[in-house]
């Protein structure tokens, strides 16, 4: 049984791998801690830019709410892939934002200075105002996942969540510091 328990723990670690691109599963708390900025905002514009050999779609986000990071009214984020002139670069898994739509972004700025969404699309939640409360949606809503801590089957905690619940959770994890 000892061996089995050890094996089970190993399995859980392996289960953290996600589909390609090649991803590592992040929990909501992971994203709150590992992000450098967490904002709610609307996509104002999207323009292609080339950084080195990679074409990015640079999206300007008009921030409406900020939980983490320096207070600015806009954020420029870089999504891998896009069309520039006659060429189009495509990366399977890279999210596509809709101009004018509102999202919650978990963002990360590395040493390059380019701000990106955590985990390609994991740190992106679309806001749905059609319900009585604003609801956050992510690609795999209602999917079943494995909690890496307990090994239990769960519903992705971030997939169906009200904006108020998300805000509360972020503030709780950050200790109330904005």
């Amino acid at each position, binding site marked *: 049984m000892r061996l089995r328990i050890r094996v089970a723990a190993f399995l859980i670690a392996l289960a953290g791998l996600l589909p390609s691109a090649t991803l590592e599963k992040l929990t909501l708390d992971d994203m709150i801690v590992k992000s450098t900025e967490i904002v709610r905002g609307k996509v104002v514009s999207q323009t292609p830019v080339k950084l080195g050999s990679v074409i990015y779609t640079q999206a300007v986000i008009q921030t409406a709410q900020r939980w983490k990071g320096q207070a600015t009214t806009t954020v420029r984020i870089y999504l891998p892939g896009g069309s520039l002139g006659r060429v189009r670069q495509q990366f399977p898994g890279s999210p596509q934002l809709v101009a004018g739509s509102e999202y919650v972004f978990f963002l990360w700025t590395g040493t390059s200075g380019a701000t990106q969404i955590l*985990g390609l699309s994991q740190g992106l939640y679309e806001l749905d105002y059609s319900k009585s409360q604003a609801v956050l949606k992510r690609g795999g809503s209602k999917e079943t996942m494995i909690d890496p801590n307990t090994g239990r089957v769960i519903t992705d905690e971030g997939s169906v969540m009200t904006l108020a619940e998300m805000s509360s959770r972020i503030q709780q994890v950050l200790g109330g510091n904005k």
Partner: protein
Amino acid sequence: MRRYTRYLALPLALLVANAAHGYYYFIHYVVRDGVAIAAPSKFDLKALVNNTVPVVVNLDGLQRLTTGDNTIALLNQLRRAINTWNTVPSSELRLAYDGVVSGEFHSPGPSIEITFGDLPPGLLALGGPTAVSEPTGDVKDPFLPITQSIVILNKDLTPRPGFGDSSSASYGEPFFLTAVHEIGHTLGLQHTLTSSVMSTEITRAATKAQPLAADDIAGISGLYPRAGFAESVGSISGRVTVGGSPVALASIVALSPDGTSVSALSQFDGTYTIHGLPSASYYLYVHPLPPAVQGESSPANIIAPRNVDGEAGTAFTNFAPRFYPAATHFWDAEPIFMTAGEKREGFNLEVAAHSAPKLYGVTTYSFPGNNGAVKPGTLSTSGGRNFVVAVGYGLSSSAASISVVGGSAAIAGVKQYANSAYTQIDFNYGPIPGEGPRHLMFEQGGESYLLPSAFRLTKDAPPEIKAIQPDDSLVSDVAVFRISGARLSSSTVVLFDGVAGIVRSASEDGSWIVVETPSAPALYRATVVAMNPDGQSSLYLGPPLYLTYPDRPTGTVSVNTPTLIEGSEGMLEIIGTDTAFTDDSVVVFGSGTIVTRRVWAVSPTKLLASVTVSPLAPDSLLSPRVLSGLSEAGSEVNSLQIVRAPAEQARIAGAITSVLNGSENVPAGSRAVIHVSNVLDTTALDQIQITVNSIPATVVAVATGEVTYLVPLELGPGPAVVNVVSIGSPAPRVIMSVDLPAPLIQSVESNKVTVTRLAEPGADVAVGRVSVSIAGVSHKPELIKPGADGTHIIEFVVDKSVPAGKQALTVSIDGRPSEAVTIDVKSQDDPITE
């Protein structure tokens, strides 16, 4: 039905003019003559040198490696991943590692760049093609040419918390398979749902020992088919409908119980074609794409095709899986037997509306030793644990019914695993269980899900390495080691940081093999991993062992051919100091403009390389480097110059080949063809001078762009330098491969052929080496005996299938054919008169 209606609304969506592409590529629809045609993104073979895409690695961004790892190991593992795509014989496309670059890389032609980037947490790697928006190619089969594809690996390759070194080290299976997968994207392949290397990580069942599955091979061959590919495989086509209306982006899979599965996605009009089916019996089934899971921006992260207005379509997923012709279980399905070249149509699948899938994305693991779990689940039928554990979206151990598709193994029980969320699946094996991938079907709560290659059956446990010791049979400078362990054989591949050693001998009981190690730098410490043909690795049982190489001077090289011209073949003579060149050595340039056609190691310190310079190559200075095993020897900086020459300059195109059989190994004394740019069919023979290894060669014929000459008989086998001066213009020197002389027919009478150059005068020649061909019918000699004046006399019996009349006769030895002579085949009583 709302989404479904949307497909119908897509402009021209139903007017798909060309045959459905098999597999699934990066598809854009273009309009030709008023109808929409699917155009995939792919490399334009006509824009490549020798059908080869150069691949460079930019290490600028790389920051951290796993402890004990190093960039030499990393680069050689990437080289192996790159070369994996060269192992598909039915694909014309070839990749060539072209070294390390720095700064912003600019290649004048198509290329692939592997970089290390500032990827955010949660993202380990990504890759994809960069294609021109305007289509090119045949009117009925257009494509968007790929220009510069990119792979971005994480700059931090240290293990994530909770993971072992093998999860991130370059020797591990994850790093290698991730690289193969991402490179696959750069070639134009999207995700597939057959558990092949191009499947997402969740279901991917590839291993480092067997990285490519049938679907990967069909995918790359369908995009870049070699002549004869379509005739060597079968195809199935049909249409997927719901209520009679087309279903877009449904996944259709041809699934053989022997482990093979090949797939395609339906087009907007519901049509599909599965290409590339090896001869076998298949079940055909259709299933919806699973919902996007965390980390996916679309189902299976597949980028949906865009219509002519740039709008992306979406997949219709509200239907239940269905087997052909109309079954819900594979045991009620109708098997379809496919043979090579068969194109079967009309396999239409009408599906029933159903809620989107709730059971999907199952991963299996097994425990071949005490080193934790391996993926995919791998079971040895000769012993060990007989179960896998599974985890997936919607899968419950208490409710699932699971079955193996086909025989060879059966489910013995399903239960919860170790009080966890995992499902344990126990197996019984049949009397002849066989080996290879096996498929599982899961059913639960009205949902069904089929996982291709869900687990792998093997006869034996994984190979094991217990010790590495120098072998007593150490020969000259070659390092030979005895590797002790279990389940080691002459078929075992032993990798030294990604470079395979040469197995020289093996014990009968599998307890040891003797391996010649690849060259490596002084005091280099290489990981040693054994892989068996059944797909298993010694890493399944434990971490790798290490081999530390002895101290030795660092090799350097100098280039004796300092100038090449663009758009021509050329040669490099490379002299090494403290090098260990072999015929497997690789010359890299870090430019993306030169492709090495072949190298010859004349000695451990002298290398000849036949190269092709791209017509797009700019004036430039390059610094060639030579890779031999794990060693890398660099030349002086900028020691090679590429110059753009005037148009009238004579250039050489392609390899020099034999007139006799088209081979690039041309027998001495026979005719060879060389392609010279400024030659016209009106050019006089004496306007062309050719020497081979400084020996004048006789020019015997010219045609536009082509010169035929006699290879001097006195040349020995091996590489020879060819100098051509064409109409006063000296072409770049090139190398030809000279073979032993071919037989020369002196006379033919009755059933005897008298030849010279068959072997040394008076020498006995085994009849198995010689063949007499008449009218294309091969005859094995009855007798070969030495004759007078260095001749050999070959006696044979004319086959009855040879038609009467004038026929061509040739004699070949070891595959080297003579020039043909014409004979008159009269009758079986008196068959031959010259």
